[in-house]
């Protein structure tokens, strides 16, 4: 059972919810797909870490074979190649499609591996923690997310996918294989606007979903109002709580610190499990 946690807006509590749900489960896998800014590992502090470098294929040219026909530069839709006295490759914008290598009539182009980040797996109590980390300066973490999710291909157990913010390609990739999506929403105007965006995304991919309302205050909650209007299942509410906020800002896992949070997230997990199986 693969459960993706997403929000649209950043900072609404995706990591709080996914880390605590994973930690409260009997046995689970936590996968951090926010490869640009991975934070789950800061909470779990996993041990026995094994890391694997992730690389992409980037073309390089054998200048003795290149005749400057420019077929490759004409072909490349990403403008990753230019011919100025010699062929130049712009690694950062290359999408690794391999087209230039296919098209070169002189076989002057070949591919080499370029490391863009890594995947780390480790253990924290009964949670297997898998983290994707994109190197700074790299544009796309999609190849890392693909690798991360391949860890789940054969797994039948419970897993939580902590998604990046936004609703672009990187989020799509993260929820692709999910059986269920949890939105984490905060009661702000911004939170609701971005919740609507991920709601549309998840509807587009036809994924079953529900919402956790975080940072709930007294009075009207615009996020709750939105969910009631759209008929989105409310899985639980987390009150605005200084104690929880402090634990969280110190990267402590609330369910491992306090029995009341263990109870809170246990019932949330129970609710989620029932929903997924429904």
């Amino acid at each position, binding site marked *: 059972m693969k459960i993706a946690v997403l929000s649209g807006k950043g900072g609404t509590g995706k990591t709080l919810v996914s880390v605590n749900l994973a930690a409260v489960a009997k046995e689970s896998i936590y996968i951090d797909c926010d490869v640009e*800014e991975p934070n789950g590992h800061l909470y779990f502090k996993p041990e026995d870490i094994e890391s694997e470098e992730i690389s992409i294929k980037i073309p390089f040219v054998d200048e003795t074979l290149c005749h400057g026909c420019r077929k490759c530069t004409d072909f490349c*839709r990403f403008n990753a190649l230019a011919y100025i006295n010699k062929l130049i490759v712009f690694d950062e914008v290359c*999408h*690794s499609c391999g087209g230039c290598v296919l098209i070169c009539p002189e076989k002057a182009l070949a591919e080499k591996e370029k490391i863009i980040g890594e995947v780390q797996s480790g253990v924290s109590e009964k949670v297997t923690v898998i983290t994707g980390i994109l190197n700074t*300066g790299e544009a796309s973490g999609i190849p890392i997310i693909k690798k991360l999710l391949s860890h789940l291909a054969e797994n039948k157990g419970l897993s939580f996918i902590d998604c990046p913010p*936004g609703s672009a*390609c990187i989020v799509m990739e993260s929820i692709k294989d999910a059986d269920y999506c949890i939105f984490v929403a905060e009661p702000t105007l911004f939170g609701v606007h971005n919740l609507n965006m991920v709601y549309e*995304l998840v509807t587009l991919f036809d994924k079953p979903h529900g919402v956790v309302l975080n940072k709930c205050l007294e009075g009207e909650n615009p996020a709750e109002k939105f969910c009631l209007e759209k008929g989105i299942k409310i899985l639980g509410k987390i009150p605005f709580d200084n104690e929880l906020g402090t634990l969280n*800002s110190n990267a402590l896992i609330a369910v491992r610190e306090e029995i009341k949070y263990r109870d809170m997230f246990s019932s949330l997990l129970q609710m989620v499990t029932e929903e997924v199986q429904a």
Partner: protein
Amino acid sequence: MRQLLILSGKGGTGKTTLSSAFIRLSKAKAYADCDVDAPNLHLIMNQLSEPKRSDYYGLPKAEINLDLCVQCDLCRQNCRFNAIQVGTDYKVDYYACEGCGVCETICPASAVSFKRAIAGELRLYVGETVFSTAELKMGNGTSGMLVTNVKKAMKSAIQDIDLAIIDGSPGIGCPVIASLSGVDMVLIVTEPSISGISDMERIIKTAEKFQTKIAVCINKFDTNLGNSEVIEAYCQKFNLPLTGKIPFDLDAVKAINNSQSIVDIDCAAGRATREVFDKTIKILFKEGLTLNLKH
């Protein structure tokens, strides 16, 4: 025109809240929202006029003409994005296709063609001020290219002004990199959490590659004083100017929910933000230039 970009690494630290306050305080003639896959600045800038809307096209995507397709499977074998699906027929997965053109090149039957598709919308509000924003259509990539277009639209609508303020997106990837190019200074809004600090360090490393000026401010600093001290020490160690500390303030949340900027009302966060603004502008305009302000 000096361009100030507001970034954070971590989401939800207060980029848009701060951007809107800076726009009010500076009376900036031009501003932009580069968070194209979760834009919010328009929600509090209360534009009176309707924007000029224009379609944004990402890269054209592949389509297979089944009348011509000979089912040789070459397109599927050569597609690095697993975008060719095989059922009874060959089909392109629209969302997986990155538009590279390999399938078109390899197809012996000329069955593949490329169709332009709308991937988002650019919105330009032109009145006394210029506000450029956009929204990426659900399920599309190429957000970096859209960010570049948002900035271009702003610049082509107005020149000869002192200052432009750009609200960035979270993360360190392509939209952030696209927003960084050509700006004069980056203000990083961080929060005193272990996650916020880790993300701040990564966005600073990313921004440093562009050799722009970098300053830091701490939002909600009083929610974890210990971590705020860690951030201050970090700034000192790496010689990054700290332009201020803003307290957590429920009035600020109320202001935003009423579509107001936090400097539109009298609140503690608003007052601290004014100080952050003054210090930031001083750094941005250090080399002889001044910003005319009457506030």
